[in-house]
């Protein structure tokens, strides 16, 4: 499988001329990754008792839920027959890697929904008693008729949240590792076909989840004139640095392994990286998205001397860079894998569409949707932790 395009005249198979998977399929793992990553951050507090993350623990589950609610949107926009989408759960094929998504996603969302409800139950119950007018009805409905919380009930809730978070960790890992498997198991495509794909997807998912939370936290603090909790930002920075390092190492192992073995697929991958993906892979994903934040993150993560404002600014910049890295990685995998023909003799153009169902505008709307939902959720639920004094023994 020599990639001939570099020295012979290019030739692509007729049906390869138009990539089948659009930017929506780039967004699908991007959003799903953040869902899993944000949830992992919340479990750091709820399961592993990382106290420093308390300020973002609630925000993390709510963000995960809002992102999760929009995770299927890009898929629906992509399907040529969206009205038949439910076939995936009604008549799933056991041999298909894709058929499992409906079940894994539904299970995860169910766990997450119950988790969120239990975490916010005290607040919901309290507001069901104090709110007036229509809001009162809303909170009573959200409380599912249970309008009282005894200390014993609070303790049971706490244990349930712990247990659900424990279930949620593997579920979130499966959810995103599985998305990686969708690509990694396609032997027809040498750029996708690697057993490392699930691991790479999973670590980059956690990275994107931490980054989106960091960004949200800093942004929300600034908007409401709150001083970000220094320990929280430090802890998030450390986590981000650690998981980014892991993600970069896994990605590097994979590519170096292929490069060193110089088997057939390397000819295709080398041609791809040195031409079509030169900017989005080498510049965006590696230099700007990986090396730069890896060098900068130790400042907010480990330095004790720098001023808080400076450290938080660097943390915010790194979060943006990391989100660019993960977006570039998804793009490079999904679109990059379709930029060469299976003839291995030529490259394919990816036409960027602006206004279509799968265009950039629709993509921007899809990306904005979880943030709109989050805004709505924040009107409804207190995402900041209750002050220590008002806590009634329940650690939520």
């Amino acid at each position, binding site marked *: *499988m020599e990639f*001939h395009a570099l*020295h*012979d*005249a290019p*030739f692509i*198979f*007729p*049906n*390869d*001329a138009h990539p*089948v*998977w659009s930017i929506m399929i780039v967004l699908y793992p991007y959003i799903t990754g953040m869902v899993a990553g944000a949830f992992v951050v919340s479990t750091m507090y709820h399961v592993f008792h990382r106290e420093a993350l308390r300020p973002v623990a609630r925000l993390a589950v709510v963000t995960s839920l809002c992102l999760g609610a929009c995770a299927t949107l890009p898929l629906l926009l*992509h*399907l*040529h*027959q*969206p009205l*038949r*989408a439910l*076939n*995936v759960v009604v*008549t*799933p*094929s056991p*041999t*298909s*890697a*894709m*058929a499992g*998504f409906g079940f894994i996603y539904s299970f995860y969302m169910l766990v997450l929904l119950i988790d969120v409800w239990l975490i916010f139950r005290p607040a919901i119950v309290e507001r069901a008693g104090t709110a007036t007018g229509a809001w009162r009805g809303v909170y009573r409905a959200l409380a599912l008729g249970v309008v009282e919380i005894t200390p014993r009930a609070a303790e049971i809730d706490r244990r349930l949240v712990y247990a659900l978070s424990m279930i949620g960790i593997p579920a979130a890992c499966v959810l995103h590792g599985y998305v990686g498997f*969708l690509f990694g*198991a*396609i*032997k*027809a*495509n040498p750029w996708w076909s690697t057993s490392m794909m699930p691991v790479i997807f999973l670590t980059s998912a956690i990275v994107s989840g931490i980054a989106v939370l960091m960004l949200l936290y800093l942004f929300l603090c600034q908007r409401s004139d709150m001083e970000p909790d220094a320990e929280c930002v430090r802890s998030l920075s450390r986590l981000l640095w650690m998981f980014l390092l892991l993600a970069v190492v896994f990605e590097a192992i994979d590519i170096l392994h292929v490069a060193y073995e110089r088997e057939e697929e390397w000819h295709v991958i080398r041609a791809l990286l040195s031409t079509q993906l030169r900017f989005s892979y080498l510049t965006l994903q590696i230099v700007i998205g990986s090396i730069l934040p890896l060098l900068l993150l130790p400042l907010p993560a480990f330095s004790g001397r720098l001023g808080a404002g400076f450290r938080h600014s660097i943390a915010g910049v790194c979060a943006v860079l990391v989100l660019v890295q993960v977006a570039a990685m998804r793009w490079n995998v999904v679109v990059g*894998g*379709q930029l060469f*023909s*299976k*003839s*291995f*003799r030529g490259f394919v153009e990816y036409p960027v569409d602006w206004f279509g169902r799968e265009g950039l505008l629709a993509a921007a709307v899809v990306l904005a949707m979880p943030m709109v939902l989050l805004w709505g959720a924040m009107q409804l639920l207190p995402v900041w932790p209750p002050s220590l004094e008002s806590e009634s023994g329940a650690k939520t």
Partner: protein
Amino acid sequence: MSLFELPILPTLGAAAAGGCASGGCSSGGCGTGGCGSAQAERTSENSRREFLKTATTLTLGAMSLTLLPGVTAGDDMLPLPPPGGDGHAPAAKPMYGFLIDTTKCIGAGKCLTACRVENSVPEGQSRTWVERYVHYKDGRVEVDLVPETGYAGSGEVQPAAEDVLRAYFVPKLCNQCVDAPCNQVCPVHASIKSPEGIELVDTERCIGCGYCVQACPYGIRFMNHDTGVADKCNWCYHRVMRNEQPACVEACPTGARVFGRIDDPDSEISRRLATVPTNVLKQHLGTLPLTRYVGLTDEVT
């Protein structure tokens, strides 16, 4: 000399005419040309073994498939051949194969037009196409499509005859993989194997996810612009069920496309398979294609 009148790979052409194991000699490097009968016998033995293996795999495969609900042909599928024997038990399903003889293809493109008409294939998409390989004396290899494939730019290269070492045409169509990745990945049983082992798309079930298009290593599948569901060559299943030849086979003026029952030792395809060495595309992927080629070179992907 016009575009498609370039000399066909001389060694292959001459050897095929003489009945020698052409592809084997040219690619295997025996080079003597005098190995005729012994090699033919070995080949014949190998082919028989291959055939028996394929036959067993197919039979077991078909049997196991019928056990899986949803994988077998649904009610909406084309009628199957009438039951044989006592009229109750269905007859053993026929098994089909496809042989492409690249040494015979002249790039006429009649097959492509016939397929487009027969299967209402939208312009700009293809169930089958014909590639032209031009090997230059300086070592370059150029590949393009014969114009009938229907693409702007196809067949535009005008090689100077004196620069050309050899040239040949390679028709492409569904390989009807026994272990078909397209079938494996379809999440909703819309990619199905007919009882005869032919890979079909159930257009009523397809959700248009495009996963099968990604999974086919040969670029055969496409999302049909007109119907919004996956589409592919199905060896003209509807014609085959009427005991007709696929449209492309019928249209080919040189017999470069041979279709028939591989469970019938007297069929033309069985006889050819038993006497001529054949290869499959991308063998290393283990898809076990039923479409076999005579005279495949390393350049063909």
